[in-house]
């Protein structure tokens, strides 16, 4: 206990992870009826967590080896499950991201959620999420990671279904929970197989062993593939991707925090956490690459066909997650993590901006928002445009740098198809982002415009102030901070890379060098990379230009090329019929097949059997107590009989 206080690092780690839990408990038990107090407790806790995370980041910035604390938690025979903290560059970076975004979102929510009857509950769940996510991030073992992984899933479920009185929201919550659980079954099986075959689930040990080829390749591949199931569920990879767009039923800040910036990135985080482990299995890496690519392309097309503001960003989240998985699977450890970092920033920004529009105009349809004069909200509109530029990968916004890094890694792959897919994805991303932006900036039919066509021009500052006041600024300030981060973050690429790769566990380091992608991408020595750079930028610019042609310019029809291809538009809008397929599969194979069989088994055999046993037990009880009549003679006779039997047994 004393050691606990003597070691400030340990104390900070413990504080950062446990305070949100305490705040959740306090809010749920004591302060549920006092909204203001609940919010303050929650924000206070997350602020402390953020400070602790920053302190850890600064203190351990130049620590050579990962710092690990472990306490025995579960002991069963030879199996010891420790509980503790693993502090290395990756976990510190992620911890800071989570704490920072949580903090900003909670501050933002003060405005966004004001007046909601479930205000305290909302903050309790936010704290639950912060606790689970931060504890997950600094887990030293896969078991602990898995436990908090599931808790994060729970927080997600609760927050998606926050408006539980709304049918679609509670359905979406269930869908998210079930689909991610489906992936987690694979994850858990993989862990069990690994535990049985390898005997240790410590992250550092797993990575070392995989690097030293101490795990048999078959075991490695099998468990890596199964564990990837968890990534597929949590990070919404194909074919488990349709829950994420539905998850937008939750409050918008929740979408920003959980379903774009942090929670869904948990899958990617876990992938990079045991990156050396994965790189021990080329088969698993190839499969991950394929799945990431499919996900990215599919969801990009889906985003082109929807008119729901949040849905667009949701699909784009899925596609960017696919992009990160591609980067990691292609061997680009740094590129993947870097994209994760920048994406957390600009995607939270996009969602929070959308939140302001939704809060203002009470609609999710961006055509409607545009028509009602969305561009008059100058600050959010500028910030949203910055986010969209970052998302499309335009210099100097952060997305540009990370996208280049990822594409650079993909370019190192012998097979050019991955690079081409990546470029195609970049094109579509720019297209759908600016389709949305142009719809909002230049609505067809128009609004009463006060100034020029450029909504980003200053001069409308007075408009929002008379409308909103404190609530608006509560939301606008976090947005502006995020926008600033998005502008700046890209330039921190080299220090970040130095921090992550240069000082990471040796395994990760050598690998990143072997993969070579990230270095090559930043240094950009080879001609291939100039080519990649040029084509990526031209793709992004091309996408924007395409969107401009169709939606932006004055004579634009604002219909999009998909109008001419109704079949395809239908395909995209219905999410490639994935949901229909799943529905049909559930109805035919699961419900009318397996489920009904099991139900029958449950009703007839198990229930019937148990009922039978119970009735038999009770009946025999009646019989025994009936035999035990008050008649002494009979009783003594039984005694004599029993004694005689015992004697007979020995004489035989």
């Amino acid at each position, binding site marked *: 206990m004393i050691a606990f206080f003597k070691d400030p690092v340990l104390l900070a780690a413990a504080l950062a992870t446990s305070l949100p839990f305490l705040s959740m408990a306090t809010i749920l038990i004591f302060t549920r009826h006092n909204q203001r107090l609940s919010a303050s407790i929650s924000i206070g806790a997350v602020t402390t967590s953020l400070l602790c995370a920053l302190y850890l980041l600064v203190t351990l910035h130049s620590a050579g080896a990962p710092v690990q604390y472990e306490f025995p938690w579960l002991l069963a025979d030879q199996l010891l499950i420790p509980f503790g903290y693993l502090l290395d560059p990756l976990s510190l970076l992620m911890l800071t991201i989570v704490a920072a975004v949580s903090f900003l979102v909670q501050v933002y929510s003060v405005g966004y959620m004001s007046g909601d009857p479930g205000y305290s509950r909302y903050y309790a769940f936010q704290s639950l999420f912060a606790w689970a996510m931060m504890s997950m991030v600094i887990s030293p073992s896969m078991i602990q990671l898995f436990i908090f992984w599931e808790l994060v899933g729970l927080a997600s479920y609760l927050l998606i279904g926050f408006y539980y009185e709304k049918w679609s929201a509670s359905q979406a919550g269930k869908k998210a929970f079930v689909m991610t659980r489906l992936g987690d079954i694979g994850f858990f099986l993989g862990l069990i197989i690994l535990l049985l075959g390898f005997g240790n689930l410590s992250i550092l040990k797993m990575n070392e062993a995989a690097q030293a080829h101490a795990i048999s390749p078959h075991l490695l591949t099998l468990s890596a593939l199964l564990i990837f199931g968890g990534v597929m569920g949590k990070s919404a990879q194909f074919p488990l991707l349709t829950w994420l767009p539905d998850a937008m039923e939750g409050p918008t800040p929740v979408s920003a925090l959980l379903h774009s910036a942090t929670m869904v990135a948990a899958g990617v985080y876990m992938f990079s956490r045991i990156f050396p482990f994965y790189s021990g299995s080329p088969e698993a890496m190839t499969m991950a690459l394929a799945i990431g690519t499919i996900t990215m392309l599919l969801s990009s097309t889906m985003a082109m066909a929807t008119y729901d503001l949040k849905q667009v960003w949701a699909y784009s989240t899925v596609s960017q997650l696919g992009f990160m998985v591609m980067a990691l699977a292609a061997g680009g450890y740094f590129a993947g993590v870097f994209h994760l970092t920048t994406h957390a920033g600009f995607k939270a920004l996009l969602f929070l901006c959308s939140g302001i529009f939704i809060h203002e105009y009470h609609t999710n349809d961006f055509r409607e928002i545009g028509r009602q004069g969305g561009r008059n909200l100058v600050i959010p509109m500028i910030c949203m445009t910055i986010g969209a530029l970052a998302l499309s990968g335009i210099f100097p916004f952060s997305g540009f740098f990370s996208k280049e890094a990822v594409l650079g890694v993909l370019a190192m792959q012998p097979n050019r198809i991955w690079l081409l897919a990546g470029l195609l994805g970049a094109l579509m991303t720019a297209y759908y982002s600016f389709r949305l932006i142009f719809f909002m900036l230049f609505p067809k039919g128009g609004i009463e415009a006060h100034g020029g066509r450029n909504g980003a021009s200053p001069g409308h500052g007075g408009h929002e102030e008379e409308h909103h006041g404190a609530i608006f600024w509560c939301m606008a300030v976090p947005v502006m901070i995020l926008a600033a981060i998005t502008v700046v973050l890209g330039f921190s690429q080299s220090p970040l890379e130095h921090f992550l790769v240069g000082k990471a566990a040796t395994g990760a380091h050598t690998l990143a060098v072997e993969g070579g992608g990230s270095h090559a991408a930043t240094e950009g020595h080879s001609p291939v990379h100039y080519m990649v750079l040029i084509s990526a930028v031209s793709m992004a610019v091309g996408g924007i230009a395409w969107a401009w042609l169709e939606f932006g310019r004055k004579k634009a029809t604002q219909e999009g090329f998909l109008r001419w291809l109704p079949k395809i538009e239908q395909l995209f809008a219905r999410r490639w019929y994935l949901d229909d397929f799943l529905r049909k599969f559930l109805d035919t194979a699961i419900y009318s097949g397996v489920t009904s069989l099991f139900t029958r088994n449950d009703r007839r055999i198990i229930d019937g059997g148990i009922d039978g046993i119970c009735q038999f*037990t009770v009946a025999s009880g009646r019989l025994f107590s009936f035999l035990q009549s008050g008649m002494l003679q009979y009783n003594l006779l039984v*005694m004599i009989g029993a*004694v005689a039997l*015992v004697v007979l*047994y020995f004489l035989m």
Partner: protein
Amino acid sequence: MKWMTFGPEIYTLLAALWFLLLSLGARPDAKREHLTSLLLAAVGVMVSVAAIKAEGHLFVNAYRVDFFSQVFKVMLSLGLFLIVCICGNLTDIRERNRHDFYILLFVCTLAMMLLVSGNHLLTIYVSLELSSYSLYVLVALRRDQNFGLEAGIKYFLVGIFASGVMIFGLALLYATTGATTLDDLVKVLPPIINQPAVIIGLLFTVSGFFFKLAVFPFHIWAPDIYQGSMNQVAAYIATASKVAAIAVLARVIASAGEGSTYLVHVLGVLSIISMTVGNLAAIAQQDLKRLLAYSTIAHAGYVLIGILSLNAAGYAGAVYYAMAVLVMKFTVFLVIVEVADDGRNVQIEQLAGLHRRSPILALALMVSLFSLAGIPPTMGFTGKFLLFVAAMGRGYFTLVLIAMINVVVSLYYYLLVIKAAYLLEPKEALPPLNVSPFIKLLSGVLAAVMIAAGLFPYYLIELADAAAKALM
């Protein structure tokens, strides 16, 4: 001074004599008598605790004082103290009999103390009879003659039958071994244990203890006697009397050393039948005391599992279980006594609404029933765990499996009682129970002890281990 080792017995005898004196002269005064007995019993607990390290042989080896016996003497005096605690309102007994009640209670405890220390077979027999006769009279003391007298006579008849079997067993043992003390039997018995006459002699001898413990086939008295006797006496029979029976049974069986498969088989079969009969018959009961009688029979079966393991772990389990039975059963009876303020028998449905009438009693009842059912983290769980582990160590898997099934069955009727106390609403609104602060405190302490002993059983397990070592 060797007599100091005889301290608890002398003290208890003196206490009994004090009440004898009172009965000769003093005018009956319920409050004074209760306080006196409380004080005497409390001092008795202290005396027993003080004598816990005593060791030695007394009366030409007829009497053996060791850690095993001393631990049980502490339990017995504690049992007596607890019983006296709930004797504050003796409505079910005639005023002129009240002194006799206390005399018999103390004499019976004395007899049991002698029983757990007995070394000579006749010492054991005589102290067993002394305790039994005290109980026969105690049962018959109930004011309601139809109930009390009938129960007393039934108890008496079954008792003398069992003691007849026991005497026969003692004769057989003496005839085959020539030994009259347990110390000698330990030396002589193991080599010839497989002879039918020897093993029948041993089994007949322990029949007397089976009667006390209510093991099949000597269990028949239990339901009628629990139902027929007054609540306090039933509590005494269910706690202190069982503790003494476990002790002496373990002591005598331990003299068989490694034992023989026959012995184990017979004990195993008796254990299984006891558990099964007890648990099944308990399901159909409406009267709470009858239900507890059947549960006692089942618990006797569990204890036998430990004893038939014939090793230190098994005996230690039995010792621990004796402590557990003492606390658990007493707590339930405490609730019965408090609910039945006029001394009537309590039906299960009469517990309805108890959680509102007296939350602390309902809580104590729930904890003790969970403990009886063996749900962690309670004392009863640890006890069953130790017993089952000991039997598994000897490879008696089938026996443990059957016992486990029985535990599940028992959960059913215990939960029925808890359901009545917590979920059922009484037909007409009943006033809150008038429970004295002392009883409230006592039930709180008992509930806490049961949970604490389940969470941190190490100290008690060590105590039980040490006691069992003295036995071997």
